[in-house]
């Protein structure tokens, strides 16, 4: 018997979703042909709808019922998977092929403890010789292997008592429990923050070696597989358009589509000619916050209850900061560091201890999600006049309209947008409307909370340019919350880093980025570097 070089061999696989009306639709997978080598980590990259998930589901045998394989074959360790009956197919799952998915928060049954759910895997592939104690042992061993130091305790926990990273580890433990030869990972890190992502990727790599597993790693983000995958394939419209060794593809893409994916992942290459205004730190700040301590659940009832339980409900602890006129102040921090709470406190939306002083009366804000930033029931004209009306600076009739059109034009939007509704606009356009609504109120400070995170590269670049233009021309200060170090480096003269509800570092951007003084800053920067290749 020869040793198979390819543990999985996909031969000219085609797949489509025929319906009664359309028996011959456009194929979802079109002549897909590749092999996964034993022991390698193979990256499968593509935008949503490119067919990468269908490929993985075809290998696992979990295709939706209305999918029809129109041609080709899949071999696993020499066996033709498509020829097996459903029962044998199912027996292979978990035992020979493991899978983990994107959303760890919903991938575990909320009603069952972690231990029970893991035990189910062992009982499903029953091994009569196994006693209950042996099963417990196998599970705790595996939990320890995926990095839990308190494995026994974890067994009795319910999914909602775990963090996102912990849940993903539990899922990995489940998928790896029977030591399958192939582990399919479908975007396992896309909903995790960078620090957690790095640790999960390290874990997978580690398991791959320890358990001699082969990994098929699916992602939409080409740069995310940097330093993780041995080989990378790129899919587009159900076809494999490019495949090569990882280092080659990431540094020197030959295929034009691959190159496009790569540039989109790296916003920095497009940022040119951004000129933020110069800042005079001797003037008095537009915003001064002193000793802010705040948290949720501040109702009397809850406070009494929490006090009885001696729990600290505060998310922010003694945070102080100044924002100076003309300044674009950067704010970074891992998830859960208290950034969002800080913003909500500064905007006066949360009760808090400590003082917030704002020089000018109005303060504007734009948020992360361009979908919910505009009211879907009203058109743009209503939004703009409502903003104007609320600022108390509303004038009459044509004057109002003139101002609205002027502001819109300044934000790169023509007057024809006035009658449009939010759902007729793109994400970038909506964020610009949001800025326009701030601008019409002439605020001294605009707080921008991750405004780029759900925009594509070109829209982000345009929005960034608009922000610096406003900063320069209207002398509007910005407090910019972002995780993108490139952007921070280019437009923020000063930077604040938060961790665990405290400001752990503050200084000029170059100082902070080049010589991080605190450990958490260093860890954050290191993770960013690994994922985004700074």
């Amino acid at each position, binding site marked *: 018997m020869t040793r198979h070089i390819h543990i999985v061999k996909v031969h000219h696989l085609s797949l489509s979703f025929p319906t009664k009306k359309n028996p011959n639709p456009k194929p979802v997978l079109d002549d897909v042909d590749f092999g996964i080598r034993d022991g390698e980590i193979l990256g499968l990259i593509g935008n949503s709808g490119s067919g990468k998930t269908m490929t993985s589901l075809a290998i696992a045998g979990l295709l939706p019922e209305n999918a029809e394989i129109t041609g080709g074959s899949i071999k696993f360790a020499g066996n033709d998977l498509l020829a097996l009956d459903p029962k044998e197919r199912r027996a292979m799952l978990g035992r020979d092929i493991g899978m983990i998915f994107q959303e760890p928060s919903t991938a575990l049954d909320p009603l069952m403890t972690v231990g029970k759910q893991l035990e189910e895997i062992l009982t499903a592939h029953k091994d009569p010789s196994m006693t209950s104690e042996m099963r417990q042992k196998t599970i705790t061993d595996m939990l320890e292997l995926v990095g839990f130091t308190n494995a026994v305790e974890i067994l009795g926990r319910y999914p909602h008592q775990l963090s996102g990273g912990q849940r993903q580890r539990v899922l990995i433990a489940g998928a790896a429990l029977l030591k399958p030869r192939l582990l399919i990972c479908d975007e396992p890190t896309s909903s995790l923050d960078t620090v957690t992502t790095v640790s999960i990727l390290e874990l997978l790599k580690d398991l791959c070696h320890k358990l001699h597993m082969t990994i098929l790693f699916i992602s939409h983000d080409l740069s995310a597989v940097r330093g993780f995958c041995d080989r990378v394939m790129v899919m587009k419209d159900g076809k494999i358009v490019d495949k090569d060794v990882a280092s080659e593809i990431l540094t020197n893409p030959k295929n034009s589509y691959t190159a496009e994916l790569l540039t989109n992942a790296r916003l920095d290459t497009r940022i040119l000619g951004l000129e933020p205004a110069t800042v005079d730190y001797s003037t008095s700040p537009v915003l001064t916050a002193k000793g802010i301590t705040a948290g949720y659940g501040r109702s009397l009832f809850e406070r009494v209850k929490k006090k009885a339980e001696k729990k600290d409900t505060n998310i922010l602890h003694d945070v102080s900061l100044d924002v100076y006129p003309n300044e674009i102040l950067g704010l970074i921090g891992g998830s859960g560091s208290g950034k969002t709470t800080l913003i909500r406190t500064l905007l*006066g939306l949360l009760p808090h201890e400590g003082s917030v002083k704002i020089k000018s009366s109005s303060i504007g804000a734009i*948020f992360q999600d361009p979908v919910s930033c*505009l*009211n879907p*029931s009203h058109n743009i004209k209503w939004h703009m006049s409502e903003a104007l009306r609320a600022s108390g600076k509303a004038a009459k009739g044509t004057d109002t309209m003139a101002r609205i059109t002027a502001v819109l034009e300044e934000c790169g939007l023509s007057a024809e947008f006035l009658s449009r509704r939010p759902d007729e606009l793109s994400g970038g356009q909506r964020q610009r409307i949001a800025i326009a*609504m701030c601008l019409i109120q002439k605020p001294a400070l605009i707080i921008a909370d991750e405004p780029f995170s759900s925009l594509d590269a070109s829209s982000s670049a345009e929005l960034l340019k608009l922000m610096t233009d406003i900063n320069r021309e209207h002398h509007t200060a910005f407090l910019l919350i972002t995780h993108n170090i490139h952007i921070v480096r280019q437009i923020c003269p000063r930077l604040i880093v938060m961790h665990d509800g405290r400001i752990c570092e503050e200084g000029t951007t170059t100082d902070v980025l080049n010589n991080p003084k605190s450990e958490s800053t260093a860890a954050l920067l290191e993770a960013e570097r690994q994922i985004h290749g700074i």
Partner: protein
Amino acid sequence: MEQKKTKNRSPEASIFYTAGLIFLGIVVAAFIISLFWTPYSPDATDAASKLMAPCLEHPFGTDNFGRDVLSRVMSASKYTLLISGAGVGIALILGTITGVLAGYYGGIIDRGIMLFGNSIMCFPGILLALVAVAVFGPSVGNVIWALGLVFAPTFARVCRVGTMEIKELDYITHARIMGVKPLRIMALHVFPNLTSQLLPATVIGLANMTLFESGMSYLGLGVQPPDASFGKMLSDAQAYIRVAPWLVIFPALMLVFYILGLYFISEGLRVGLTKGGKR
């Protein structure tokens, strides 16, 4: 995945709409025609021709007073539409105002309003409406008020949950930051976005209210004779169920058509609006 779902769903929604509109159309048409013309006067008794089986002169037969059942069914649709419409209107106004207030302010206001609403909902609806009408006397106006009050908490719930969700959205945060007054936020920023939840609830409310109204009329606490209503016609017909089943069948059919029509439309709305919401 989502894309495919919506494609499969829209014909489903339109089937619901069509079926709903046909059923509802029958009742509404009967109502509109009855405003101008009925074959006979719905209240005119005729001792000589009582309990006639359906025939050419009386397509739906006659009742124990010799009244034409077709005419009575037509004029009964008037009360069904009037009571359910007005009752839902009252419930909608009360429920929306309290629900939005509770959802927006939360805290003690929310707890108070919801405690009151939940307490009302602890009575099986029909019981409360029955007692209210029994206390204040049976009349169309009292039925409308009673049902309006009984149904208000349902709408309050829908509005409260909707408001609590919408309140967390960025555009409301925006409005608060811009300094828009709370009442204006609730009326102009929050309320318009509740329509997608309120619309199916309203249609279902119409159907449920009709169920209640006809039940109360059945017990003699709703529309008063000689005026015709489906429930009263059915309760009168019960005595003749063996000799004159047509007295049961035609009002029952019309009643079921109306409710079924509303259910189908609400189903269509639900399917259609979730599709729209996902866009």
